[in-house]
Structure formats: structure tokens, C-alpha cells
């Protein structure tokens, strides 16, 4: 069962959405790195300031919440979750495949 071949180029909206997904996947990695930073200070023999480190941590935390909020709002668009060509993060309804034509008179 081979997945259908994907075209090398996708349209701009879909491209943006894919990069949004990448961002959503990478955000926890960024968070992990930032959260690990204070350890480097605190590992020093004299320790680190609880108050300052705490401020840093909560700032990072709040920043992550904000970014996650923006990303998830963009990702949880009307098209829902599934990735793929059919997922278009667009508020507008997709244009009909064929323009509605007036009913042809019957012979």
C-alpha cells in the first residue's frame, strides 16, 4: 500500500498550513530547551536566584501559552485536523468545483 504520490508543489495556503504544523510540532522542543536553561545556572556551586529564575520560567511559560494559543487557533480551523490536500485552513467555504449552471431545458 503506497501512499499516492504527492505533487512537488502545493498551493500557497496549503504550504503555509504545513509550516504551521511544523511549528506546532517544534514548539515543545523550543519549550524544553528554554525550560532547561535555568539548570545551567543553578548547577553552579553557589546556586541561582530563585526569584530571578522563577521570573524567567514564568515568562517563558506565558510566552509558550501565547504562541500555542495562536498556533492552535490557526490549526484548528474550520477544516479540522487531518493533514492532506483536502485540508485547507480557510474560513471561506471552498469554491464549488463547477459553477452552478441554469438547468438546461429538457427536450
Amino acid at each position: 500500500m503506497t501512499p499516492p504520490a504527492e505533487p512537488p508543489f502545493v498551493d500557497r495556503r496549503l504550504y503555509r498550513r504545513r509550516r504551521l504544523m511544523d511549528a506546532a510540532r517544534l514548539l515543545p522542543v523550543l519549550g524544553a530547551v528554554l525550560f532547561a536553561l535555568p539548570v545551567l545556572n543553578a548547577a553552579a556551586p553557589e546556586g541561582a536566584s530563585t526569584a530571578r529564575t522563577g521570573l524567567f520560567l514564568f515568562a517563558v511559560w506565558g510566552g509558550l501559552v501565547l504562541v500555542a494559543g495562536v498556533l492552535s487557533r490557526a490549526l484548528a480551523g474550520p477544516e479540522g485536523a487531518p493533514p492532506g490536500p483536502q485540508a485547507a485552513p480557510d474560513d471561506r467555504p471552498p469554491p464549488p468545483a463547477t459553477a452552478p449552471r441554469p438547468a438546461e431545458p429538457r427536450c
Partner: protein
Amino acid sequence: MLTANFLVGACLAYVALLFVVAFAAERMTAQGRGEWLTGPVIYTLSLSIYCTAWTFYGAVGYAVRSGLEFVTIYLGPTLVLIGWWAVLRKLVRVGRSQRITSIADLISSRYGKSTALGALVTILAVVATTPYIALQLQSVTLSFSVIAGSDSDDPGSISLIVAIGLAVFTIVFGTRNLDVNERHSGIVTAIALEAVVKLVALLAVGLYVVFALGGGPAGIFARIESSPIAEWQVSSGRWIGLTFLSAAAFLCLPRMFQVLVVENRDERHLATAAWAFPAYLLAMSLFVVPIAVVGLGLPGAGDNPDLFVLTVPLSQGEGGLAMLSFLGGFSSATSMVIVAAIALATMMSNHIVVPLWLRSGPQRAMMSGDVRRVVLMARRFSIIGVLALGYLYYRVSGGGAALAAIGLISFVGIVQILPALMGAIFWRGGTRTGAGIGLGLGFALWAWTLFLPSFGAGGILPAGVVAEGPWGIGWLRPEALFGLEGLDPVLHALLWSLLANVAGFVAGSLVSFPAPMERMQGAAMVNVFRSGAALSSWQPSRVDSEDLLIMVQRILGPSEAQAMFQAEAARQGKQGYLPDATPGFVERLEKELSGSVGATTAHAMIAQLTEGSVVSVEELMRVGEETAQIMEYSARLEAQSDELSRTARQLRDANAKLTALSIQKDAFLSQISHELRTPMTSIRSFAEILRDGDGLAPRERARFSGIIHDEAARLTRLLDDLLDLSVLESGQVTLHPASERLDRILDRAVAAAGVEGALRIRRRGAEHVHLVTDPDRLAQVFINIVANARKYAEATTPELTISVRQEGGAVLVDFIDNGDGIPAEAQSLIFEKFSRADNTEAAGGAGLGLAICREIMARLGGSIDYLPGQGGAAFRVRVPLRMAPPRAEAAE
């Protein structure tokens, strides 16, 4: 100081409120009202059961002991949620598409609906969760005794009351009925309310501490800087390890799985929770350090930092705030216990009790009685059992250990599910064997290195074993396995157990070979986002749909089951309640049932009916054999159908012939009537002339009489032909066999045909053959053919070649003219009665000649055939040298 009675009253009132809220929410959801009840806000709030009493009280104590390290417990879940797109989304999708009821169900259903794996995960979850429940009971008791002072009699009895109360609440709202989706709107709403209560309580205490006691944010900042925990030291291993641990536990904890996956109503709620729940966690931990610092500086706050959240407002005489804080802690404890009890009870009933019950007798699924009652009773007793275990653990352990320590021990235990869980949704190569080995190893190592020693040296493990290892084997010491010393015990246990777990899982998976069911489930889960990834399983459909209906009724209830069956029947285009038990329907049914009783049980019950419990290799081979048989059968069918189509073709040809004949016959009838009519007309008119014409000359009279005579003769000939043919056909002809030479018969025939001058005749071959036959009849045939040649051979100088040769016991006489021949479509018709090749009237005959010839030849034991491809019309007459005696004719 608040009195114990007042506290009890407040608790009861609070619990009553929870009952009312849960009841109202259930009613509203059932009536389809209150959409916000099933919305993302409630979903996010329900996740807050992650924050238990351990968080509510313990975090402050943790901060006092280890500074900011407490925050790792929240950083892990934060990372998991903001990374929802990668892991949680898939988990939720799998859970919804497979109707997963618990984490044990997911593991068991992914690895081939294995009962053993489900039971193993269930046991692991129960063992790891029991201390946690004990912890909640302990915190409630502790907080109660703190706030009510020493006038409470026995703190133990309070925890008992709490345990019983929680059991009642959980049983009432958790096992009211078997929901097809295993969702409990009442409970979820109640715990959402509790989430709000605990957040408000903690924020209230925090704000009070910061602004009333600490002098605002700047003041608090200064106080932290000058407090005993102003400087903090942390090992990077512990920081990172604990963050990872909490992230993993967030995914694996049965209660978290329950609210995250099972109670999820809409995948999009996850998108909201992705940022809202981290924000909730942030708010919950924001004031932990300030409370700790202020508590440390207050002499009246007591010496147990785990209770600063209570004692700080209490020491300031803020009874109301302390009461709120107490309710917050109470909320934290109760919501955790309720959901954990439901999750564990579901797992215990679906993966231990019901499988055992099903196994206890053959055909249990078909026995009379209500399966629902069995399942529900199993759940109720499981809830009571879980709470009783927690209570026992609390009594036995005496609540000695620090709260946070028990929490971490539980986490490490439950995290053993992680490798199998991640393998389940991301790695198709994971197998049941691998998962079993990994889980078993991890579980064993966790128990040895962390769980058993947690009871203290001399608790369960003898002190000597802890200090020197079993039988004095140093490298097996629980807290320094393989000589790894100097590591934090939690990290030590986490490292070894997960290492062994992952190694066992991967190695076991790589080496073993999955059963077909595992491979199908693996593909369905790992590829859950690919559209159409739902692989259809095969079920031998020897199942009676009435049996199915009986069983489903007993699980889902009659009305729901009947509605389901009726819908399916309608889908199949049938009336009534009994659809065909197609494999697709059976599979859908199993999925519906697994929403109620878990995948393993549903599979086992369906399997008992379908008599195909496991898709084993043997079964596959049998299927293969069946396939081969089917292919052979289909080959035979194909041959038969070829034969049939040949027959059909012949029939079609015959039909076409019949139709053509019928048309010809009609044409002939009209023609023969015309031909009969023409002589009759002339006979009649000439007869009238003779009758009325008195003055006719004798010569004229003679001529008219001659015409009448000729016409009458023509009529006679026609009638003779018809008579002859009917006699020949009916077999009543009398033959006169005699010995005669062929050339003489031919001579006579050519002479009698009267073709002298009109047709040139060439004769070849050995004509001097003696025949025993009816010479007159044979001559009649020859005459007919020769006359035909004269009539139809349209050439400027018509020629007829007559060649004779012998073949076998017969002589073949070919008559070939140089005309146009007979078109192919007419060749099959020329021997039929009333047929004429070109349908022209020019020939003047009635079209009976060749039919008569064929009949005669058949009587003589020979045949006459049209011989195509000779240039002109060609007939081959085959005459046996000796005709069969006439007796045979008579016998026919």
C-alpha cells in the same frame, strides 16, 4: 478555629452541591441542552485533575524543600499540551476511532486485543495508583485535623468517611449505565467545577499572601531574595528527569487518559486545551513560591510546609479564606479520586473481571442474564475495591512519607506504560511480545528499585536486603542497581526501569512476529490519519444475527440495540430488526460494544458467537486453503459458464434459424396459396368458358381442356411433393432396395431432369459402383439436384460437374455447378422445408425439393450436404454401398 462539625457540614454541603451539579449536567446533556457542558472549556477544566491535593498542598512543601524544582511537575504537561499536534491529537483520534475505554484498553487493543496485556496494564495501574489515592485521603485527613484543631477524635475515621463518600458518588455517577461511549457528562462537569474551586482557592490564598502579607509583587520579590530558599541548587539530571517524568505521566496516568481521550467529545477541544491548560497550570503554580516564603517567615504557620496553604491564612485569623483553601484541597483530592476510581474500575471490569467471567464457562455470551448487570456490578465492586485499597495503603503506610515522594513513586510506576503506548501509535513494528516484555521488565524494576523500598527499610523488604542486596549480592541492591550509586532514588529507578522497558519492548518486537490481528490493529492505529485506513478485519460470518441481537441487547439495553439493528437492516434494505450479519456489520458492532465493555471483552464476546475467537496462523492457512478451493471452484464455474455460453450461442443460432424459418414459412404459405390459387383460377376460368361457351371451336375446346389438364397436373405435382415429404418425414415410406450401378442411376437422372441443351454436364470418377439401395429414390435425389443446377446456376454457359469417389463404406457423389453458389447465411436453411435460397419466384418450385432430398438420403442411410468453397453451388451426396435392411427403418 473552625469546629470539626462545621467542617463536616461544609464538606457535606459541598458534596451535595457536586451531586446536584452532576445530576443537572447529566440531565441537560441527555436532553441535548447546555452545549457548553460538552464544550472546550469544560474539557480543559476537566484536565485539571492532574492537579491533585499533592499539587494543592504539596507543591508549597516541595518548594520549601527544593526551591523551584516543584515546577517541573507542571512543565512536563505544559510541553505535552503545547505539542498537542504531534502526540495528543493522534492519541485522541485513535481513542475515538477505536472506541477506546481506558489506557489498558488501548494497549490491549493495539497489541492484538490481548487479554493478558490489558490485565498487566490494569494491575500496574492499580498498584501505581493506590498510593496516590492514599495520598489524597491523607491530605484530606491532615488538612481536616489542621483546620479543626486537635478536637477531632480520630483522623483515620475522617479518611474512611471520605473514602466511602467518594465511593458512593463515583458509583452513582460513574456506573449509572453503560454508555456506548463511556462518557460521563455529570462527573466531568462536577470535576470542572472542582477545578474552578481549587484554582480560585489557590489564587485567593496567593493574592492574600502577596498583597496582604508580602507587600505586593516587589515586596514578595525582595522576600524571596532574602528567604532561606533564595538560592537553589538543582542537579540537571533531576530537573530534566522530572520534567520528562511528569510529561510522560501526563500521558500515561489512567485518570488523565480518561479525561484526555475517553471523555473527549470533539477533537477540536484539544486545540483549546493546548494553550488553556498550560495557562491553568501556570496560574496554579504562580503563587507557590510566595506562599512558601511567607509561610517560612510566619511563626504561626507551623512546621509542616505541606500545609502552608491552609496554615498561613489560618494563622492570620482568616477563617473564611482558610475554609476556601480547605475546600480547594478537598476538591483536588476528591476529583482525582473520583476519576481515578472510574478509570481503574473500567479497566478492572473490562480487562480482569469480565474476561475471567467469560472464561469461566463456555458460551457465556449466549447465556441468559444481563451482561450489563455483570459489567456494572464488576465496576461498582472495582470502585469500592480501589478505594478500599487506597484506604488500606494509607492505614498501613501510616502516612509517613512526604506527600511529594509518594507522587513521584506513582509517576515512575505508571510511566512504564509509555514505551508500549508510544509504540502503539507511532511504530507499526511494535508487537505484543515486545510490549509484554517491556512492561513486565519495567514494572519489576520499578517495584524492586522504588516501590518496595518506599515502605522503608524493614517495611516489605528487609533492611539487610536494602542495604546489601538480596543474599548479599551487592549489585542487586534496590537503590544502587548494577552498582550505580549516588543517584537520586527516583532518577535511579526511572533510568533503570525505563531503559530495561524500552530495550525489552524494542528487542522483543524486533525478534517476535505479530499475529494478524496485531498487524491490522497496528496499521489502523499508526495510520489513523490516513483516510480509509480502517482495515476491515475478517470474521467468519457464521453468526446468527438474532444471537447477536440478544447479546447486544444485554450489553447496551434493548432499545438502543434494537435501534442499532433496525438502522443496519434499513441500510441493507431490509425490513425489521434482523440485518444480515455481514462481516462489516459484525465489525461495527464490535466497535460499538468495545465502547461499553472494552475492546478485549467485546472481541471475546463477539468471538464466542462467531466461533472465530483468534485469527491464528492456522486460521489463516485454513483461509488460504479455502481460497484455493474457491479458486478451483471458480475455475470449474468458469468452464461451466463457457459451456453454458456455448450452449447459449447454439440456442441463439437455433432461435435465429427458427425465426428465419418461420418468416420463410409465412412467405411460403402465402406463396403456396398463391401458387395453388393461380392454377385453380385458370382451371376455374377455363372450365367456365367451356361450360358457357357453346360456340367454341373444337380446337379451342381442346386447347382449353389441355390447359385445365396441365394446371391440374401442376397442382397434383405440388400436392404430391407435399405428400411425399410428409410421408418421408413421418417415416412411413416404403423403400424398395435393389442392386443397381451408380452410373445407370445417374444416366437416368440426368435424362429425366430434362436438361439437355440447357446445362452442360461433365462426369468424372469411377461411376461403375454397385449399390444396394432404392434406385428410384436415389434417382429422385439426383434429378432434384440436377434440376436445381439448371434453375439456379446463373452462368452464360451453365455447367454441372458430377464427380464420384468412394470413401469407406460409402460413395460420395459431388454435384458442382459454375453459378454464384449459395450465400453463407442461406446455406443452413436450404434443406429446410419451404425454403428457397434466393426467395425468388423465378424457380417456380415450392421449395420442397432439397427437403425431400434430405429426408430420402436419411432414409437411405446416407446424407446430403452443401459443400461450400467450390466456386459454385455444390452438393455432396453420400450413399452407403449397402443400405441398412428396411427392418431397421420399421423399427425406428
